[in-house]
């Protein structure tokens, strides 16, 4: 039995350059890297020294506040460089890959007999734990917490995001193994959401509660689904995990090998032939970017989708959690009377001489221009139109800005992650950095209350 979730509030941002559904194999990268910024709030403690040989799946470092939580190498090779930033903070770990890959043996887990603790230990030591994120705080799940439910969204509504149905096809066995294992970690349900008319390999798995989602973005965001299915209360913990990471966990459980392979979408108006690639976590982006071709010099390369991803460059590396790489034009140019003339080629949430409301299905070629300057909050009532959660977005943002902990809690900061505010940020008339405000609010709350 599936339950339908219909989202009415929201906005679909249709961009030029969606990935065509053909899969190519990206060439192997020489160097793979883990970007430590991907693991928010984790202080790493190195387990191996620069120059050490590691196998794929062999631990590189652990979490300083929980030494059982290991982070492993995506490939086998030599740890050639530990890039450090200010105050010797580790930024990036670079591994020069071997020609033939060797995998560390984690052993196959017998899922029929394994209990909660065994599964936890297995995921922690094999490096799969960091795939599991928790709310509140939108951080890697605390291994000692018991989630009231686990949420998985296999419905991608963000602009240009990889289509989960396509990327996951043929992976039923891995997905089922991962779901079975995760089922042991929670006394609650595993909620899986798929698109209403989708053909998802996740839909027929055992041990899940299936939800069919329809409506505009952000209906595909897991935060929206949590709020509609089983909202988080103060003191509760839910876990979230993206389906592409279930595949890695599943394969690990079935074979004992940490195979960092993943299907990603390379998309955006700058890409000549946007399509899907099979590659590995940490692969150099140039290994597939130039194979697909770019049609201009000045572009913004994004690890992830255009609303939530991180800025990177062709020599950068595929992020730990990303299954989309987006490339859009940079918009660092002036526009004559850009603020008052009629606009046909950009998206707007109003009709103030902007005409995107006339063609809701038109595809736009948006660039990175902010289309205006940063201002104090002025306009009201606009965020609510694209924010389906039962939360007052403007009030919550203001509570975060003034660091009012009580108000942040009362208004529901526990329930959200920065990505839930990506759409309000997109339409913000005052160009306020919503996601950053929420991130800082969450960090403050975590630090003060834990």
């Amino acid at each position, binding site marked *: 039995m599936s339950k339908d979730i219909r989202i009415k509030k929201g906005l679909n*941002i249709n961009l030029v350059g969606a990935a065509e559904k053909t899969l190519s194999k990206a060439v192997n990268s020489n160097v793979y890297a883990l970007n430590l910024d991907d693991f928010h709030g984790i202080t790493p403690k190195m387990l191996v020294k620069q120059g050490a040989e590691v196998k794929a799946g062999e631990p590189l470092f652990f979490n300083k506040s929980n030494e059982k939580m290991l982070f492993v190498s995506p490939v086998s090779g030599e740890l050639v460089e530990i890039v450090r930033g200010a105050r010797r903070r580790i930024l990036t770990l670079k591994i020069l890959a071997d020609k033939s890959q060797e995998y560390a043996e984690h052993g196959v887990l017998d899922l029929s007999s394994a209990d909660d603790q065994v599964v936890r230990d297995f995921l922690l030591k094999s490096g799969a734990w960091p795939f599991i994120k928790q709310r509140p705080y939108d951080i890697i799940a605390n291994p*000692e*917490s*018991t*989630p*009231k439910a686990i949420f998985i969204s296999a419905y991608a509504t963000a*602009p240009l995001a990889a289509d989960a149905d396509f990327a996951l096809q043929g992976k039923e066995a891995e997905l089922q193994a991962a779901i079975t294992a995760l089922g042991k970690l929670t*006394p609650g349900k595993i909620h899986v959401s798929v698109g209403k008319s989708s053909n998802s390999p996740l839909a027929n798995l055992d041990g899940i509660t299936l939800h069919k989602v329809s409506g505009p973005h952000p209906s595909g965001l897991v935060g929206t689904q949590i709020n509609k299915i089983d909202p988080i*209360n103060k*003191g509760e*913990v839910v876990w979230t995990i993206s389906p592409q990471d279930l595949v890695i966990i599943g394969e690990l459980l079935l074979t004992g090998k940490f195979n960092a392979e993943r299907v990603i979408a390379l998309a955006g108006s700058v890409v000549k032939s946007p399509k899907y690639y099979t590659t590995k976590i940490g692969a150099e982006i140039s290994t597939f970017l130039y194979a697909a071709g770019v049609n201009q010099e000045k572009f*913004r390369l994004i690890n992830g989708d255009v*609303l939530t*991803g991180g*800025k990177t460059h062709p020599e950068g590396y595929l992020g730990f959690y990303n299954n989309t790489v*987006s490339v*859009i034009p940079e*918009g*660092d*140019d*002036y526009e*004559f*009377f*850009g*603020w*008052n003339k009629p*606009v046909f080629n*950009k998206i*707007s*949430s*109003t009709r*103030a*001489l*902007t005409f995107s409301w006339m063609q809701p299905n038109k595809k736009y070629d*948006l*660039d*990175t*221009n*902010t*289309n*205006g*300057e*940063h*201002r*104090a909050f*002025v*306009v*009201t*009532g606009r965020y609510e139109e694209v924010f389906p959660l039962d939360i*007052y977005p403007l*009030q919550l943002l203001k509570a975060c800005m003034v660091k009012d902990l009580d108000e942040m809690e009362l208004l529901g900061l526990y329930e959200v992650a*920065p990505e839930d505010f*990506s759409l309000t*940020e*997109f339409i*913000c*008339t005052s*160009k306020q*950095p919503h*996601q950053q405000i929420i991130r800082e609010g969450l960090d403050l709350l975590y630090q003060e209350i834990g």
Partner: protein
Amino acid sequence: MGLKEKLHQTKLKYQGKKMAPAFNAIHTFLYSPNETTHSGGHIRSVDDLKRTMNTVIMALVPCLLFGMFNAGYQHYSAINGFPENFSVMEHFITWDNFWLGAITILPLVIVSYGVGLAIEFVFAVIKGHEVEEGYLVTGMLVPLIVPVDTPLWMLAIAVAFGVVIGKEVFGGTGMNILNPALTIRAFLFFAYPTWMSGDKVWVHGAVERAGTADAISGETILGYLAQGNSDFSYSLSDMFFGFIPGSVGETSTFLILLGGLFLVFTKIASWRIMLSAVLGSLAMGLIFNGVVEAGWIPEYSKFYGLMSFEYWQHLLVGGLAFGIVYMATDPVTGSQTNKGKWIYGFLIGFMSVMIRVFNPGYPEGVFLAILLLNVFAPTIDHYVVRGNVKRRMKRLKNATILPKVTGEVEELKTETV
């Protein structure tokens, strides 16, 4: 080197300097900036504050132009008598009317913008932030809500007061509690009460001619009614289309209605506030009509004239329609939650008509009602938001919270065993 490139170089030269905000204000007026996203999402919608404010100004321009024609029309009609068989093209849209209106009203616009923007620039430079767009709308609203013959020095003082005390002391656009345009209007009213009311200020030239053989007068309908009269010579269509004396831009309910529809269509102003304010004023009007009908108020009462005024006609006279469409919908000083907007708007309409009827000194209550509700808007929002908090609390009460740490589960179990 084109203008674009030249300005770019100048911007780089001024960067970090004290005068940068002043230059940037002019630069971003000509060209939308080359800023790109650097945190969070990488794309942004095209809407910004300049476009938002510009849309409101566009909705105000018809009122301004109409105000110019009407200033001339009222002036010449007061001297020569109102034309019989009035025709819009012949008697209203004439070069004479427009010329007289333009030379009396444009100075108001120029002083309003000149003084206000100068103060905005000075504050931006002192505080080192960009010049914000809020005053673009305020500067346009102010000349439209004052009597046509308001002396320019008075207006200048009022604007300076309104911008500094009404807005800048709170931190500029987006931070103010009271609507700056109405603060300016209130200042004028309370500082120069004899100027701002009576029957001499609504028609150009009336003040100068007072006491001479050429004396003219033009009373607003409300002023006339407030003296206990209940019949007046204006037809319903005069009132609706705005061929009546009043503040510069407030007379044409028809154009205000069009402006309101435009603002609702463009999603710039809140339809909730507009609709509920209309409902609120109708409700209060109906109550007063009911009181008159029930015979609770004698005909010689000084409130009789306004109380017996047909309830829906309140929307056609005075500044009610203008206030509802352009002032009550100010997002900064209004209610910020959707539910709050219904309450806020309703009370504005309700109070406006109430003050209009009961105010002994001055038969208009819109600006006072809006300012009053500006003060109460945060309170309204507070209770609306508490509703959401309460819902969350209730959910929490019914939830069974799992213990945070797995170890505790076992401890709990052992305790219960």
